[in-house]
């Protein structure tokens, strides 16, 4: 067995590995419980299978067909979003929904029903999946779509890889004029200003997201930069080929002291003041707009050997947004948040996924460098608050949520578990299915 870790590098597990390469001759090993593993960009333990086996899907990376009229692409589950962008853009097609990294597989995007900056108008990734083929451990191959094997279709979208192995996918791409984005960046000084900006922007802007300072307190509490954009008609290069992009890699683990509240506070202050005016309009390439962190390979190493915990919750929107304010306040008071904090308002577009995370409300997402039990206690406090506010936590980014909370965030789990393949499992699934008193 080999050591395995997710993008957050916590927890570390021992698991066996099995590589897949040809969709026509996939045979599943029978000795251990299985879990498909794409690019390993989930943060916690949902892409790990401690003591059991993962199925590497990176070899399942072939295209099958593309319809240039309708923009439907048919490809294997290990094809990455980066490959789809490289393929689609020269032909005038873009991803219908994209998360904050392009280094994820299509299968992984379905298994976590990922969302992006256009959730308020486009819904989740799963909303754009036309069909896929699912291989079950009993050898059955099921074509799943909104018309065929509908329950399995719904259970697999957001199903965390537990319903079987996705072999191929048919995905609807969206037409665009080019690779550029018309962007407006607006400074805001408080959470109330953020909520105000968010509700007035959702109508006219396809993409909205905010960076928010989780360290500044006092008069600067809740400051941040609101970014809103639309696909541009301006022509631009298909690829951004900067030298920096090719060489920027974090080559080894950073020493633990590098990130502390002083360095992170300084970073946040500089970032907030990088624009002089309150509102700046520009036309930018899609790559830095959607994937700012992809420019630095292995950025997860800056947190050092111990790794980090990512926290992403959604809480319902109400008139005063008390819930998000309380969660945010707790994060700021902990003093241990990092500089990668993102806030966004989810819309009400329903996903076909049974276990999808996104739901109407406000979502907050950030990293906490792992500093022992103190960080774990903070995660528990936040989990308790999200639970009390009837919110939910995101399995793809979780390593700590309480089993009973999971079952309350996802009350449909019992129905879902009927569709879980008896020979598939994950560290996450075993953790949240553990009986508690």
């Amino acid at each position, binding site marked *: 067995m*080999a050591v395995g870790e997710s993008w957050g590098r916590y927890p570390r597990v021992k698991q066996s590995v099995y*590589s897949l*390469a*040809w*969709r*026509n*001759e996939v045979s599943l090993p029978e000795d251990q419980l299985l879990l498909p593993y794409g690019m390993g960009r989930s943060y916690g333990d949902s892409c790990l299978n401690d003591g059991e086996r993962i199925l590497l899907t990176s*070899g399942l990376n*072939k*295209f*099958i*067909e*593309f319809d240039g009229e309708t923009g439907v692409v048919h*490809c294997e589950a290990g094809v990455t979003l980066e490959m789809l962008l490289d*393929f689609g853009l020269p032909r005038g097609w873009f991803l219908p929904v994209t998360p904050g990294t392009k280094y994820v597989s299509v299968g992984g995007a379905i298994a976590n029903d990922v969302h992006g900056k256009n959730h308020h108008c486009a819904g989740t990734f799963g909303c754009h999946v036309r069909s896929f083929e699912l291989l079950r451990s009993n050898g059955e191959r099921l074509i799943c779509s909104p018309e065929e094997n509908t329950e399995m279709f719904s259970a697999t979208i957001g199903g965390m890889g537990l319903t079987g192995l996705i072999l191929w996918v048919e995905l609807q791409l969206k037409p665009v004029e080019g690779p550029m984005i018309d962007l407006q960046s607006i400074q805001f000084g408080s959470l109330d200003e953020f909520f105000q900006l968010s509700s007035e922007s959702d109508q006219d802007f396809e993409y909205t997201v905010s960076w928010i300072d989780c360290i500044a307190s006092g008069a600067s509490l809740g400051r941040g930069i609101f970014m809103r954009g639309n696909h541009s008609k301006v022509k631009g290069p298909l690829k951004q080929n900067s030298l920096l992009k090719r060489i920027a890699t974090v080559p080894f683990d950073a020493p633990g002291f590098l990130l502390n509240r002083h360095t992170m506070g300084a970073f946040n202050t500089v970032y907030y003041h990088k624009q002089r005016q309150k509102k700046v309009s520009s036309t930018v390439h899609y790559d830095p707009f959607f994937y700012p962190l992809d420019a630095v390979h292995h950025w997860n190493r800056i947190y050092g050997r111990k790794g980090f915990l990512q926290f992403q919750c959604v809480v319902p929107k109400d008139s005063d947004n008390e819930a998000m304010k309380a969660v945010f306040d707790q994060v700021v008071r902990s003093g241990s948040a990092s500089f990668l904090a993102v806030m966004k308002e989810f819309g009400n577009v329903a996903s076909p996924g049974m276990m999808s995370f996104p739901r109407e409300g406000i979502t907050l997402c950030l990293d906490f460098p792992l500093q022992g039990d103190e960080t774990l206690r903070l995660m528990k406090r936040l989990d308790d608050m999200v639970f009390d506010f009837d919110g939910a936590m995101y399995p793809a980014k979780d390593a700590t949520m309480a089993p009973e909370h999971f079952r309350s965030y996802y009350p449909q789990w019992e129905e879902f578990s009927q569709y879980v393949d008896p020979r598939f499992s994950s560290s996450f699934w075993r953790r949240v299915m553990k009986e508690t008193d």
Partner: protein
Amino acid sequence: MKKVVLFGATSAIAHEAARCFARRGAELLLVARNGEKLSVLQKDLETLGAAKVQTHVCDLVDIKDHESLLKTCGELLPEYDAILLAYGTLGDQGESEKDFSVAEQEFRTNFLSAASLVSRVANMFEARGSGQIAVITSVAGDRGRKSNYIYGTAKGALSIFLQGLRNRLSSTGVHVLTIKPGFVDTPMTAHIEKGPLFASAQAVGEGIYRAMERKKDVVYLPWFWRFIMLIIKAIPEPLFKRMSI
């Protein structure tokens, strides 16, 4: 547009190189043993933009079939202007030591059959006065080591064969490229634990495409293997023979 024949097309490295040609609208002929895998690749390469993709099922090891194989290739893709030879077996060093017939089979697959195919294509290209011959050998052929010297012998012999051929054809307009990959993460090495020196098949495939475009003679992929092998080749034999690397 370029017309390329790929022998051992189902290897992960050959597939990635083929994708580079496909994106630029090349015509491709894929030759390998497994017809179903070839169909999977055919769809992929057509989708990516190849002008035309054909397949031919054939076991390349058998030298006596090579003449008819090349005749078929010429009929399927007339006037093809490049070949990429990408098949090989890593073999079991231990078995080859115990039983020479296993080693002999390794030599047949990795050296003799490759030399036979290349010879015939070289003569054809020489008569025409143009063409490109790209062959995947290995860094393992640069120095014999106890962990894989059977494989290394075959690949080393192939590298020397290509060196001589390049010398012979240097004034004819026929280009001969020797490709020496280091550790590559492919189904061939699926059983080996991956270290930091492992490169992706995609990176190596793209490197092959670039080396063919730039008409290089010998290319190490990724590039740093040239320096690793320089050091390994420089170690004095009295010392080297006692090392385990």
